[in-house]
């Protein structure tokens, strides 16, 4: 288990528990009471710590290397997942993966950013930072889903779109703009779940959805706290302050009415009990999908468009005063 800086006291407790277990095994003496006491303290501390995470700590949890990534969800809560590759123009960008699958027997199109879990896979998936061909693949798959009347579920987990020479040359901006446009125009349900990092344009490109859900300790932001700190504070060390100012937590964004729902994580974060998180995510997809498939396609599209059109407009009523 990889412990984060602020989890140090918990890590120490767990170390102590492991030590005691070892001693009790070797010596054959029973110190179960002591172990149980420590264990319940560790659980309590973990709970309290995670209930009071500040925005910067949430940022660290959202980026935790052991946190379940898109492929973990794809392979656990769906069946028959068949990866479909390529943008039909340039290449296959493995930072964004997608394909057909079944969810409780129903066909769905799932698309998500994959960060990878070790050096090899991180490189393969470019750390979840997509290039234009990734966003063009996403467009292709969303259009295919629209064509066949299949609901789309996207999983967002990216630091942002990849900043590179080739990406610019092939039209990173245009690819993101068209991906947003495709999200907004399809006539099938579109549910988006931010599972880790929702990084700026690279995130909104696949999450301009009917429903935007966020995991309890995920973040969604217009810029990374580090980037914001270096631009506005001219000091990269002010990331913690920037994270607080940006209102990037699920809880803040729900309050601001910019996302629709929060998915509760197990005590100590999604990485501590993946099965539990898969169960919670399954329940929320089920609930939202059941609601959305009842709505006619044109209405789905119109409602999605009106939802975004209203973001930033004060009620028309106020204007006539």
């Amino acid at each position: 288990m990889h412990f984060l800086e602020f989890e140090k006291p918990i890590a120490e407790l767990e170390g102590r528990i492991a030590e005691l277990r070892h001693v009790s095994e070797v010596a054959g003496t029973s110190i179960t009471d002591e172990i149980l006491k420590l264990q319940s303290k560790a659980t309590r501390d973990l709970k309290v710590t995670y209930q009071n995470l500040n925005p910067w700590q949430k940022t660290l949890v959202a980026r935790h290397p052991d946190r379940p990534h898109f492929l973990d969800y794809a392979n656990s809560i769906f069946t028959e997942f068949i990866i479909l590759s390529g943008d039909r123009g340039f290449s296959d960008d493995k930072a964004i993966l997608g394909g057909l699958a079944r969810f409780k027997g129903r066909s769905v199109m799932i698309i998500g950013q994959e960060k990878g879990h070790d050096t090899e896979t991180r490189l393969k998936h470019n750390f979840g930072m997509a290039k234009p061909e990734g966003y063009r693949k996403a467009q292709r798959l969303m259009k295919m889903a629209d064509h066949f009347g299949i609901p789309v579920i996207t999983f967002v987990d990216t630091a942002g779109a990849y900043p590179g020479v080739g990406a610019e040359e092939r039209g990173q901006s245009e690819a993101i703009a068209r991906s947003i446009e495709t999200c907004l125009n399809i006539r099938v349900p579109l549910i988006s779940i931010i599972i880790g990092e929702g990084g700026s344009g690279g995130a909104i490109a696949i999450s301009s959805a009917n429903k935007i859900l966020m995991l309890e300790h995920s973040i969604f932001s217009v810029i990374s706290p580090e980037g914001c700190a270096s631009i506005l504070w001219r000091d990269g060390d002010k990331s913690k302050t920037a994270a607080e100012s940006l209102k990037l937590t699920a809880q803040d964004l729900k309050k601001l009415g910019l996302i629709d729902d929060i998915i509760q994580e197990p005590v100590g974060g999604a990485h501590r009990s993946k099965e539990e998180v898969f169960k919670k995510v399954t329940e929320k997809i089920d609930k939202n999908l059941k609601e959305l498939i009842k709505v006619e396609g044109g209405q789905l599209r119109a409602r999605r468009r009106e939802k975004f059109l209203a973001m930033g407009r004060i009620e028309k009523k106020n204007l006539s005063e």
Partner: protein
Amino acid sequence: MNWLTNFVRPRIKKLLQPREAPDNLWLQCPNCKEMIFHRELEKALHVCPSCQHHIRLTANQRLELLFDNKEWTEIQLPNVPVDPIKFKDLKKYSDRLKLAQEKTGMHDAAIVAHGNMGKINVVVAVIDFSFLGGSMGAAVGEAIVSAAELAIVQESPLIVIPSSGGARMQEGVLSLMQMPRTTVAINKLREKGYPYIVILTDPTTGGVTASFAMLGDIHIAEPGAVVGFAGARVIEQTIRETLPEGFQRSEYLLEHGMVDIVVHRSDLKNKVVQLLSLIMRPDPAAPILPLNKNRKSKLFESIKSSEHNSNSNIIDPSIPDTSLFEVDGNDNKN
């Protein structure tokens, strides 16, 4: 209730007012450092006579450049939430806003105006880089949305002239949401069949290029303008290489297929008018008409009574416009 009665009531006729400048004012070209006499610079439309560098213009200078007789009507934009996340860095965002307002005399970074361009009624939204780097928060989003709505009401083409560093960080995710928001507005305009032209000026990057600025029917760019998604510095830090010559400049974008034409400022208005006329006036004998796919019958009517139709592009606030709120109606047809 009518959109126009709320938003367009104060009709401010803008007329060119000769700016007062001391007779001995000389300015330095930011590119070649040549000193240029201000009258000469104005005559050259703020293009450096010695190196052809296109100096950044204010929003009003942009409008002067394009509208016939330098005459237009600016519309009052709806209010937006001010400082939605109570943002504070070294300064309060609300103070930064006030400062920018005092410095520029603008309410926010974008203004929307309508008027004639080569006798064609056109709606223009322009973003001024000098207002907080032209960044897009709810107010700039609102400007683009209102401009698209106004173009639909006036059955006119829309021209957007961005210059922007991207999303306005100080408004958090609300600024990010302006990307889908403006995209919806542009889509609604295009579904009605009205032309949408983007004039990319220096610099246009980030969330602005990754939404409405890259969705034009036609993309025009001023020479040498920096247009891209990620900032050059960020890219350099990521790839740890020096960037190719002319990277993210208009000519480079043209070469890579991202813009249609690169046009010198002195030819900009002519090109825009020519393009609009080619799109909207396919038959030279016919009057200038909006291309309106959804209202074929009205189009034919207008052709029949073209003699009396010269005012068709002028809005009459007394006529309630129902088309604006038929949001769902269109969506269900196709």
